[in-house]
C-alpha cells in the first residue's frame, strides 16, 4: 500500500519513488501489476471529473481548481518570511494505490476539476456530490458512475455501465457491450439518452413517470404484450372504472433478449439509439 497526500501547488516529496509529480498539479501513479485488472476509484465532494482512457500504463491525475486566481494551475500564496505553512490534508487530493486499485479523493475544502487519464482497459467507480460534471471517454471495463447534482456523460466506451444522476442528464454511448452483464441507468429529473451497438442483446426494463420512451427504428425490439396495454383505461361510460395503470414499466427484448438493462427516470424521457 502506498498512501500519500499531495497538496496542490507544492512540489513536495511524495515519499515514494513509484509516484512522479510532473508539474505542481499533475501526478502520475502506476498500477502495480500490468497483468492484473485495474480499477480507478474517484470521489469528488465539490467539483467534477473527466476520466479518459489513453494508450499508457499509469494513472495520470491533473487537478484544476475552480475560479482560483490563476485558473488552470493552482498556486498557493507563499508563506510570509520566517514562517512556514502546515499543510492541511483536506486542502488537496488524497491519492492511494493498493492491489491495482488507484483511489483519488478530493474537493473536500475547495472545488476542483479533475482530469484523470488511465489505460483504456480499466474499471471505474466514480462519485461526485456537488455541482460537477462527470465525464468518461474511451474506456473499456466496468463503469460505475454517480453524480448527485450534475450530468453523467459516458461516451466511446466498451463493457458495462451503471450510471446514476439525481438531477442531471445521463448520456451513455457504448461501442461494445460485455455479454452477460446487467446494466442500469437512472436519474430523478433528467433525460436518459443511451446509444447501444447494433448487435446488443438485452432485456429492456424501462420506467418513466412523466416522460416518453423513444426507441431507435433500426432496433429489433419486441415489447411485451402487457407493456403495450394502454396506461389509462377509461371504462366509466360502460359502467366501468377509470384507472391509471400503476406500473409504468415497459418491458421488451432487443435482438431476441439477453441480460437485463434497466432505465429509470421520473421526470425525464428515455431515448435508446442504435450506434
Amino acid at each position, binding site marked *: 500500500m502506498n498512501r500519500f497526500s499531495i497538496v496542490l501547488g507544492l512540489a513536495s516529496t511524495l515519499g515514494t519513488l513509484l509516484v512522479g509529480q510532473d508539474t505542481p498539479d499533475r501526478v502520475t501513479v502506476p498500477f502495480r501489476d*500490468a497483468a492484473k485488472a485495474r480499477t480507478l476509484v474517484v470521489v469528488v465532494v465539490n467539483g467534477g471529473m473527466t476520466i479518459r482512457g489513453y494508450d499508457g500504463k499509469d494513472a495520470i491525475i491533473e487537478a484544476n481548481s475552480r475560479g482560483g486566481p490563476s485558473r488552470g494551475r493552482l498556486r498557493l500564496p507563499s508563506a510570509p518570511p520566517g514562517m512556514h505553512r502546515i499543510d492541511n490534508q483536506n486542502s488537496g487530493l488524497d491519492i492511494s494505490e493498493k492491489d491495482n486499485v488507484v483511489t483519488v479523493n478530493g474537493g473536500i475544502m475547495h472545488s476542483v476539476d479533475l482530469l484523470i487519464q488511465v489505460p483504456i482497459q480499466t474499471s471505474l*467507480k466514480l462519485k461526485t456530490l456537488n455541482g460537477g460534471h462527470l465525464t468518461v471517454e474511451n474506456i473499456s471495463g466496468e463503469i460505475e458512475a454517480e453524480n448527485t447534482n450534475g450530468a453523467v456523460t459516458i461516451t466511446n466506451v466498451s463493457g458495462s455501465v451503471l450510471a446514476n444522476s439525481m438531477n442531471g442528464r445521463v448520456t451513455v454511448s457504448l461501442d461494445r457491450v460485455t455479454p452477460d452483464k446487467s446494466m442500469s441507468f437512472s436519474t430523478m429529473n433528467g433525460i436518459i439518452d443511451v446509444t447501444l451497438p447494433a448487435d446488443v442483446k438485452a432485456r429492456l426494463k424501462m420506467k418513466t413517470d412523466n416522460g416518453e420512451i423513444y426507441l431507435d427504428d433500426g432496433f429489433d425490439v419486441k415489447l411485451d404484450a402487457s407493456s403495450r396495454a394502454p396506461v389509462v383505461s377509461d371504462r366509466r361510460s360502460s359502467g366501468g372504472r377509470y384507472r391509471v395503470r400503476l406500473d409504468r414499466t415497459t418491458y421488451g427484448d432487443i435482438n431476441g433478449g439477453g441480460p437485463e438493462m434497466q432505465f*429509470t427516470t421520473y421526470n425525464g424521457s428515455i431515448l435508446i439509439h442504435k450506434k
Partner: protein
Amino acid sequence: MTCEEAKTLLSEYWSQTLDETRELAFDAHLAGCETCRAETERLGVLWKSLALLPVEEPSANLRGRFYETLGAFRQGLESAPRRSLREKIVSFWPRQPAWQMAVSFALLVLGVGVGYEIRPEKQEQPEVAQLRGEVSNMRQLVALSLMQQQSAGERLRGVGWAYQVEPSDTEVLSALLKAVNQDSSVNVRLAAADALHAFGASPGMRKAILEAIPKQSAPLVQIALIDLLVDLKKKEATPDLRALAADQAVHAGVRQRATWAVEKLQ
C-alpha cells in the same frame, strides 16, 4: 537484444505484461531495428483487432441443462451412502451355506416388512420434488453469492436472480433488504427495491419498507419504495406516508409521491 530475443517478448508486449526493465530493453531494440518495429506495429494492429471480433453467446438452454444435471448429481451423492451400506451388508455375508440361508430368510422377512412400510404411492414424485428443491437451492446460492460481489454489475445480476427463487425464501429477502439499505450503488439499491415486489406477502414487509425509506439518500429509491407500498396495498402505511409528505427535510419529489400514495391507498 537480438531480433530473436525481441520476438520472444512480443506477445507480452501486446498483452502489456512486460515489466519495466524488459520493456525498456525492448523499446531500445525497436528504436534501432526497423524490421522489428514494423513487425511489432503490423501484428499489434491484428492483435488489437482480434478483440473486436463478435462474441458468440450460448442459448438459454445451457443454463437450464446445467442446473438439472447438478441437481441430479447432488441427488445421486445423497443416495451414495445408502449404497455403501449395502456394501457393508455384502461384506457381512456369511461364508457358511447354512448361515447364508438363515440370513437370507431374515433379510427377506425384514425386506417385506420394510417394503410394506415405506412403499410409496407414486414412485417418481418425491424425486421430482427433490430435484426441483435442489434447483431452487442453487438459484438461491447464486443470487446470494452474486449479491456479495465487489463489482456493482455482479450485484445487479444477483438481484436479477432473486426473481427466480421461491417467494418464501427469507435468506434472499434479507439479502435484498440489506442491498436496499446499504449497497453503495444507487442502481443496485433501485433494482433491489423493485425485486422486493415478489416477496410482498412476507411478514414484516411493510415495517421493513417504512424503515428503509428514511435511510435512503437517493430520492429515486425512496420513490420506488413508496410505489412498492402502493403496489402491495399496504393501507396501514398511510399514517407514515402522511408524516413523510409533511416532512420538509425530505426531497420535494418524494413528498409529492407520498401524498399521491396516501390518496391511492384510500
